[in-house]
C-alpha cells in the first residue's frame, strides 16, 4: 500500500482523452443522432404569462402536410411534482391554463423541424388573461393574486436565529442596512437542451437520448412518470455541450418526447432552439436580500440579519425548486469565511408567473458572496478602514478548524487566511492602492474588489444527486485493458481523463490502457450524476475505492504467480514485480489472461475474471473548498462602462487530480462571473413577457471582456478519499462579488455601492451623476 501513496498520475497535468473526438468534429451531441424515419418536434408555447385557455383549435395543425401527430395534455396527462414537498405540479403540457410565457401547450410531431414549426404557427389558442404576478415582494404579500388559487404564493418559509442575536444587535455600536438583488439569469449552455426517444430495435425497450447531467435519475423520472418499469427504459447521454446545473432537471419536454415516440411508434427528436432555451431552460438566481449588519469600532462584525427572498417562478422545477436551493443554502453559509457569531435569517420563496427557477452553477453562492463581501466593504468604508484589514480581522483563523458557523454548518479545514494573504500579494495590493490614488487625481476611476469564499462541495445529496454516493465498475479484460464505468453525467469537466488518472495509479496500468464510460444506464453503475461539485470528490472517491479493491486482487495474483509475499508486490507501468527485484515481474496482461482463461491458476478465494463494482459515500456530509478572488476594474464614468483589467485567484480545493482541468474550471467560472456581474439578465416586462429571448438581448462575456487571470493553488486535503474537495462552483460563487466590490471601490469617490447584479452602465451613470462625495 505504501506504493499507492506515491501517485504518478493523480496531480499531473495530463491532456484530456476527450479532446481528439471533440476537436475533429467526430463527437456525437444530441442533435447529431439521426436514425431512419426519425420525426421532429416543435412545441406550441404560451405567449401569455397568466391566462385561462378558453379554446384551442389545432385542426389546421393536424391537417398540415408532414404532421404525424399533435399531443396535448389529454394525450400525455402527466404532472411534474413532488407531492411530499410541494402542492403544485406542472402539467407537461398546459391543462386549461398557462402560468408563464414559454410554457409548453402542445407538441407537434412532424417529418422535420421545419415542417413542425410551420404547423405550430397554425395553432389557434384563445386566452383569457389573468393579472400576471411578476413582482417578488408583492407576490410574497399575495399581490396582485395567488398564482395557484389553492395554495399561498410563499411555498417555502423558514426562520432561524442564534440565541443572542437581538442582544448582539442592541449592544453593537454600529449598524448598516442594505438590500442586495441578483437578477434572473440562465446557464446558457452553448448546446441547448434536447431529447430523442425511440424503441430499441433489439430489445423493444424505450431508449431515450437526453442531454442531461443525471442519467440514472432521469431514467427513473421517465419510468415513474410514464408508468414504464425502469428496466424497460434505457437512458443514453451523448456528448453534452455544457450544463452548469441547468441540465440536472427532468423537463416537460423530456416526458412529452418519450410519450410521442411510444404513441407514434417512431423515433422522435426535439432540440431546443435558442429562443426556447431562454424561455424554457430553468432560470437561476433572482434573489432579494434585506440585510442588516452590526459591528464594532475595530471592524469586527458581530451579527447579521437577512431576509432572503427568491422568485421560484410558476412551478417548482422538477424534482427540486431552485428558489429553495438559492435561499436555504445561502442562509446556512451567508457568513462565508468570516467568524460572525450571531445570525438571524428569514426565508420566503414565492411563486410568480415566470419560468420555474432551477440550478445554475453556484446556486446559492453568488448572492451569498455578494452580500457577505458587500457587507465587509460597507463596514470598512463606514469606519474609514482598509477593506483588506477588515477581512483579515474577521476571517476564520487556522486554529478555529473545524469551525462551526452561526448557522450550524461545520467547515472542515481550509486555508482561508493564507488564500486571502496570498491573493493580496499576487495582485500587489499596496502598489494598487498607490496607483489608484494617482489615477484618481487624473479623474480615472479604478477599483479593486476582494472576494474570499467558501464552497460547500461533495454534499451527501445535491441538486443533481439523487443519492449521496457514487459508483465505479472496473472490468479488466483478458488482455489487461481496463474499462471503468461511472454513474456520472459530465458536461465538459473531463471525467474520462481525471477518473483514468486516479485508476492508473491504483491499478498500475498505463493511463492509455484505461477507458472511462459514463452516461448509458446499461453500462453505468447506479449513481447520482454530476452537479453540486460532487464528481471529483465522490466520483473520484469511488474510483479510488474500486481501484484499491482491484489492486488488492492484482497483488494476490502477482504474489501467487511470482511465489512472493503480497506485501512485497509493487505495481506500475502494466506490470507487477517483487519489490527490489524488478526482473521478477509478471505483466498485468498475463494476470488478466490467467483470470479469464487459465482459471486453474487463480489464487484460492478469488473469483474468475477481473470485475468489480465499488461505491463510495463520504463519511462527512460535505467538504468546504475555499479561496480568494481579486478583481481590478476601470470604470468610465462618462459612459458607465466597466472594463475588468486584472484578476487573480488563489484557490484551495484539497488534493488536485489535474491542475490544468482545475484551472480551466476556475477560468470558466470567472468568465461566468463577469457575465453575472456586468452583462447577463433575463428581463420580464410588467405583463410577464420575457423580453430577452436572443443572444443579442441576453449578453454573454466574449473573449475581449476577459482579462488574463493569474491563478495559484493551495492544497488543504479533505478527510474524504484522496483528500479531494469539489471545486467547479467556487469560481462563480466568488467572482461576481469580486467584480461588484471592484466597481464599488472605483466609485468610492461618489460614495456609491453596487447593490444589484448585473450592474449596468445605466446604473453606474446614475451612481456617478451627482457631485463627488469627497
Amino acid at each position, binding site marked *: 500500500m505504501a506504493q499507492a501513496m506515491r501517485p504518478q498520475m493523480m496531480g499531473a497535468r495530463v491532456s484530456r482523452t476527450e479532446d481528439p473526438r471533440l476537436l*475533429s468534429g467526430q463527437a456525437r451531441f444530441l442533435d447529431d443522432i439521426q436514425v431512419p424515419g426519425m420525426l421532429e418536434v416543435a412545441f406550441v408555447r404560451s405567449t401569455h404569462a397568466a391566462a385561462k385557455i378558453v379554446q384551442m383549435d389545432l385542426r389546421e395543425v393536424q391537417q398540415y402536410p*408532414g404532421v404525424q401527430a399533435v399531443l396535448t395534455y389529454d394525450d400525455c396527462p402527466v404532472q411534474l411534482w413532488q407531492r411530499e414537498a410541494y402542492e403544485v405540479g406542472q402539467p407537461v403540457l398546459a391543462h386549461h391554463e398557462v402560468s408563464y410565457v414559454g410554457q409548453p401547450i402542445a407538441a407537434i410531431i412532424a417529418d422535420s423541424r421545419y415542417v413542425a414549426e410551420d404547423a405550430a404557427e397554425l395553432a389557434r389558442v384563445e386566452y383569457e388573461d389573468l393579472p400576471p404576478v411578476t413582482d417578488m415582494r408583492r407576490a410574497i404579500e399575495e399581490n396582485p393574486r395567488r398564482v395557484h388559487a389553492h395554495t399561498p404564493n410563499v411555498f417555502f418559509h423558514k426562520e432561524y436565529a442564534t440565541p443572542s442575536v437581538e442582544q448582539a444587535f442592541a449592544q453593537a455600536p454600529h449598524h448598516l442596512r442594505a438590500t442586495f438583488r441578483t437578477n434572473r439569469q440562465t446557464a446558457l449552455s452553448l448546446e441547448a437542451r434536447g431529447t430523442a426517444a425511440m424503441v430499441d430495435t433489439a430489445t423493444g425497450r424505450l431508449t431515450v437520448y437526453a442531454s442531461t447531467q443525471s442519467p440514472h435519475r432521469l431514467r427513473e423520472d421517465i419510468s415513474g412518470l410514464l408508468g414504464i418499469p425502469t428496466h424497460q427504459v434505457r437512458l443514453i447521454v451523448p456528448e453534452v*455541450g*455544457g450544463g452548469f446545473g441547468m441540465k440536472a432537471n427532468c423537463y416537460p419536454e423530456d416526458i412529452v418526447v418519450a410519450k410521442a415516440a411510444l404513441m407514434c411508434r417512431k423515433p422522435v427528436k426535439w432540440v431546443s432552439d*435558442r429562443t426556447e432555451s431562454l424561455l424554457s431552460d430553468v432560470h437561476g438566481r433572482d434573489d432579494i436580500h434585506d440585510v442588516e449588519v452590526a459591528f464594532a469600532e475595530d471592524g469586527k462584525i458581530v451579527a447579521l440579519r437577512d431576509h432572503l427572498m427568491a422568485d421560484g417562478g410558476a412551478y417548482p422545477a422538477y424534482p427540486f425548486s431552485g428558489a429553495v436551493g438559492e435561499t436555504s443554502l445561502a442562509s446556512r453559509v451567508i457568513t462565508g469565511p468570516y467568524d460572525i457569531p450571531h445570525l438571524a435569517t428569514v426565508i420566503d420563496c414565492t411563486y410568480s408567473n415566470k419560468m420555474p427557477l432551477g440550478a445554475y452553477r453556484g446556486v446559492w453562492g453568488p448572492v451569498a458572496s455578494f452580500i457577505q463581501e458587500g457587507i465587509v466593504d460597507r463596514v470598512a468604508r463606514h469606519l474609514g478602514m482598509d477593506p483588506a484589514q477588515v477581512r483579515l480581522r474577521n476571517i476564520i483563523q487556522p486554529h478555529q478548524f473545524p469551525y462551526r458557523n452561526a448557522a450550524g454548518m461545520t467547515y472542515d479545514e481550509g486555508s482561508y487566511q493564507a488564500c486571502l494573504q496570498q491573493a493580496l500579494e499576487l495582485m500587489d495590493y499596496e502598489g494598487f492602492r498607490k496607483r489608484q490614488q494617482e489615477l484618481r487625481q487624473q479623474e480615472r476611476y479604478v477599483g479593486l474588489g476582494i472576494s474570499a469564499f467558501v464552497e460547500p462541495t461533495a454534499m451527501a445529496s445535491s441538486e443533481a444527486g439523487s443519492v449521496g454516493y457514487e459508483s465505479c465498475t472496473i472490468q479488466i479484460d483478458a488482455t489487461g485493458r481496463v474499462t471503468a464505468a461511472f454513474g456520472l453525467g459530465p458536461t465538459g469537466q473531463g471525467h474520462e481523463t481525471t477518473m483514468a488518472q486516479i485508476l492508473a495509479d491504483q491499478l498500475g496500468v498505463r493511463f492509455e490502457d484505461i477507458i472511462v464510460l459514463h452516461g448509458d444506464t446499461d453500462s453505468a453503475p447506479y449513481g447520482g450524476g454530476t452537479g453540486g461539485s460532487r464528481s471529483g470528490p465522490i466520483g473520484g472517491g469511488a474510483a479510488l475505492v474500486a481501484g484499491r479493491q482491484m489492486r488488492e486482487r492484482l497483488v494476490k495474483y502477482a504474489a501467487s504467480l511470482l511465489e512472493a509475499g503480497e506485501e512485497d508486490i509493487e505495481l506500475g507501468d502494466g506490470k507487477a514485480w517483487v519489490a527490489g527485484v524488478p526482473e521478477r515481474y509478471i505483466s498485468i496482461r498475463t494476470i488478466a489472461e490467467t483470470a479469464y482463461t487459465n482459471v486453474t491458476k487463480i489464487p484460492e478465494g478469488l473469483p474468475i475474471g477481473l470485475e468489480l463494482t465499488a461505491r463510495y459515500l463520504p463519511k462527512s456530509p460535505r467538504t468546504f473548498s475555499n479561496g480568494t478572488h481579486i478583481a481590478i476594474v476601470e470604470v468610465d464614468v462618462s459612459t458607465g462602462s466597466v472594463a475588468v483589467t486584472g484578476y487573480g485567484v488563489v484557490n484551495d480545493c484539497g488534493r488536485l487530480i489535474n491542475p490544468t482541468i482545475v484551472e480551466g474550471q476556475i477560468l470558466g467560472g470567472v468568465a461566468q462571473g463577469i457575465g453575472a456581474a456586468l452583462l447577463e439578465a433575463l428581463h420580464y416586462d410588467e405583463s410577464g413577457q420575457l423580453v430577452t429571448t436572443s*443572444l443579442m438581448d441576453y449578453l454573454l462575456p466574449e473573449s475581449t471582456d*476577459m482579462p488574463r487571470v493569474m491563478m495559484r493553488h493551495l492544497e488543504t486535503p479533505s478527510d474524504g478519499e484522496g483528500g479531494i474537495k469539489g471545486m467547479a462552483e467556487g469560481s462563480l460563487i466568488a467572482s461576481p462579488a469580486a467584480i461588484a466590490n471592484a466597481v464599488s471601490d472605483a466609485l468610492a469617490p461618489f460614495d456609491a455601492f453596487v447593490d444589484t447584479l448585473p450592474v449596468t452602465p445605466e446604473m453606474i451613470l446614475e451612481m456617478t451623476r451627482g457631485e463627488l462625495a469627497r
Partner: protein
Amino acid sequence: MAVEQRIGLTLWVNGKEHLLEASPRWSLADVLRHQIGLTGTHVGCEQGVCGACTVLLDGQPTRSCLMFAIQAQGHEITTVEGVTPTEGLSPLQQSFQSHHALQCGFCTPGILLTAEALLADNPTADEEEIRAALSGNLCRCTGYQFIVDAVLAAREQRRDA
C-alpha cells in the same frame, strides 16, 4: 402545400463536390449537418451571435446558420472535418489539446475555423488581435484564456516551421 419543395444543389465542401436535393429555405448549417452528415458544425443559436456554426466560405469565417445552402453554391466551404488531417490532429488542434482550450467542446469547431482563418490572414496576430478575432465565438466553459494561449502557441509553431 407541398411539404418541402426540393431543388438540385451543388456544394463544394472540404474539396469534394456534393450533389444534393434540398429545400431552398434550408440553412447551410442544416444541409451540412443533416444532408451531408458533417455534424462537426454545431448550431448554437440560429441568431448569428454565438459563432458555433462558423465554417469557412472561400477561406472567410462565415455563420452557416445565417446562410441558405443555395447561397453557398459556387463557393468553397470548409468545415472542421476539412481542417482535420486523415490521421491525428492538425497543429492547431494539437495546441488546443495541449493547452486545455476546450471543455464541453461544442463551440470548439467554430473557434478552430475562426482561428485558422486568422492565422492564415495575419500570421503575426498578437493577443489583442486574437481576442478580437475570437470575440464572435462564444464559449461558456473556458473563459477563453486557454483558447488564446493555444492560438498563440500555434502561431509560434507556424513561425518556426
